[in-house]
């Protein structure tokens, strides 16, 4: 174990997997000579060359579908989309092609494609560079959707995603790129299972189910609330699709109160799916209505971003509200 930054942990995961398996390659805009727009592939072009670190024209649809074709021939592409907002240009590739190709063609080949992209605010980049669109992909049968919160998790989950024979939408968060923390060394080769949540903080009063940047906001809220005698459990989903019902349901069976927090707009976010599943399956475990935390239903704000993205205060307020509530 060593301390690193989230963005370096991403680079290390790709580098180690490329060393381990010659079928793994990286493709995207500015990933080669420039080392990636956020620096995720710095040094990889020099190490692996233009054959495996593939710079592309600005053409998200073209290179994402190209990755699908390469995967159907046995390669294992990692596609980098510069900002999650730009993935909209590759929706045919992901939704109509990659998500369906193995199943629709009767398992004639697998589709081991990882599509990496950073989401969220943090740069005051406004409506077209700040969105969190994970729910779209979680809604498409055939895709897995992963969101990592820490350097340790991002490395181990990216390695798992690259090794997975299913397509994985791998969502980073721009505010996390510079975040420091421990991550496994190459020799340790830590790979976390997809579809498994991680209880980041144990607590007995309220369960907060969350992912990515909001894990840290929820932990901050939990620290603040602890001084007021409120004991919050923070469950980091890590994989949104398929999500870990067992861990979430076990936690609710202990606390009997639920808050779901994500940076995406609240309406139709993954919080809606989790809330609905809890209501369908373990409603009698709840002692109070579920609260959801998310961004307001408006395009990401340029000048008012700090008020737009949900924060620890929003999580704390939701926790308090669910403690006041009852049926």
């Amino acid at each position: 174990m060593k301390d690193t930054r989230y963005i370096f942990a991403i680079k290390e995961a790709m580098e180690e997997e490329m060393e381990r398996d010659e079928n793994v390659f990286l493709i995207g805009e500015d990933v080669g000579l420039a080392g990636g727009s956020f620096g995720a592939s710095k040094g990889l072009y020099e190490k692996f060359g233009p054959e495996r670190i593939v710079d592309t024209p600005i053409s998200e649809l073209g290179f994402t579908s190209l990755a699908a074709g390469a995967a159907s021939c046995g390669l294992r592409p990692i596609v980098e989309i510069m900002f999650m907002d730009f993935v909209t240009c590759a929706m045919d590739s992901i939704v109509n092609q990659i998500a369906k190709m193995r199943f629709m063609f009767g398992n004639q080949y697998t589709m081991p494609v990882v599509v990496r992209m950073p989401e969220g605010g943090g740069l005051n980049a406004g409506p077209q560079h700040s969105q969190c669109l994970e729910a779209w992909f979680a809604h498409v049968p055939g895709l897995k959707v992963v969101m990592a919160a820490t350097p340790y998790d991002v490395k181990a989950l990216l390695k798992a995603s690259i090794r997975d024979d299913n397509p994985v939408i791998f969502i980073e968060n721009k505010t996390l790129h510079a975040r420091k923390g421990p991550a496994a060394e190459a020799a340790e080769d830590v790979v976390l299972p997809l579809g498994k949540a991680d209880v980041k903080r144990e607590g007995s009063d309220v369960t907060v189910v969350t992912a990515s940047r909001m894990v840290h906001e929820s932990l901050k809220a939990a620290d603040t609330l602890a001084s007021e005698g409120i004991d919050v459990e923070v469950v980091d989903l890590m994989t949104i699709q398929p999500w870990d019902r067992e861990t979430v349901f076990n936690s609710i069976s202990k606390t009997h109160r639920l808050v779901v927090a994500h940076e995406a707009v609240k309406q139709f976010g993954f919080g809606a799916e989790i809330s609905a599943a809890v209501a369908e399956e373990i409603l009698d475990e709840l002692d109070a209505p579920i609260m959801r935390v998310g961004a307001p239903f408006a395009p990401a704000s340029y000048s008012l971003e700090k008020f737009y993205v949900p924060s620890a205060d929003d999580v704390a307020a939701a926790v308090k509200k669910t403690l006041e509530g009852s049926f």
Partner: protein
Amino acid sequence: MKKPSKAKLIEFYSTMVRIRKVEEKLMEVFSTGEILGFLHVSIGQEAAPVGVCAHLHATDFISTTHRGHGWAVAKGIELNRAMAELFGKKEGFCLGRSGSMHLADASIGIMGANGIVGGGIPIAAGAAFTAQYRKTDQVAVATFGEGATGEGAFHETLNFAAIRKLPIIFVCENNGWAEFSPRKIHMPVESVTSRAAAYDMPTVSMPNDVLAIYEEAGKAIEKARKGDGPTLLEIRSDRWYGHYVGDAQQYRGKELVDQAMAKDCILNFENELLKKKVFSKQDVEKIHAQVDAQVEEAVNFARQCPFPDVSEMVEGLYV
């Protein structure tokens, strides 16, 4: 380019007849409801797949379109299991999940037909990329209509393929109709070949004649195999029927349909081979009888196969 042998010429003819008869049979069983969904036939356009696929090995790749039966047959798909797939049966190549619009046989490089216009073009480029990555001499052929050349997928792929010199051949069947719209509504240029200049890509246009196609495709494929990059081919053909089977073509009118049907690439080739005494009338009859029997056998096979179990609708979504 070496001239094809007599046996090869007869094989070209037989394959064209096989495509025609398969699709005529599909129209028949579609009308009785045995085939579901949409059916798009390529009758009148049989020369293109035969002329191109004659140069391909089982290890080469093709991506096809919603109008792709001809390409699958020319690439060598086994008729019984293909027919079972179109009938939605479990013995089909795709376990009855694909039907006509997504027919695939990965074992011989048929990557899969695509229901999204232009969707298969970058996918074929992915196969070409893989061949280059692994330093094999495999090539990929992306097939599409001129309607697809309005899509970003077409332009993005030509751009990348030209930059990386991918071993791919872009084959456009320009049949004059993008679904229900004539060329002048969706293309400012007469010929798709005009589009290649933007990518500094060699390009050739040719008539709907199997020998002309065979010759030009041969040169383009050889070039791609040698690592000398992509080519855009345009084949000027005519779509006899509507966009889909059942399309009354009111937008087109009887006169234009009659003009298209008067141009028959199979009949023209048959007359040429008869004139050159490559085969006789009796040989032609024999070929037709053989193909009729193959198609009948495929339909009978498909009919007796079971449908997938309802549980298979959701099982195995993830590996």
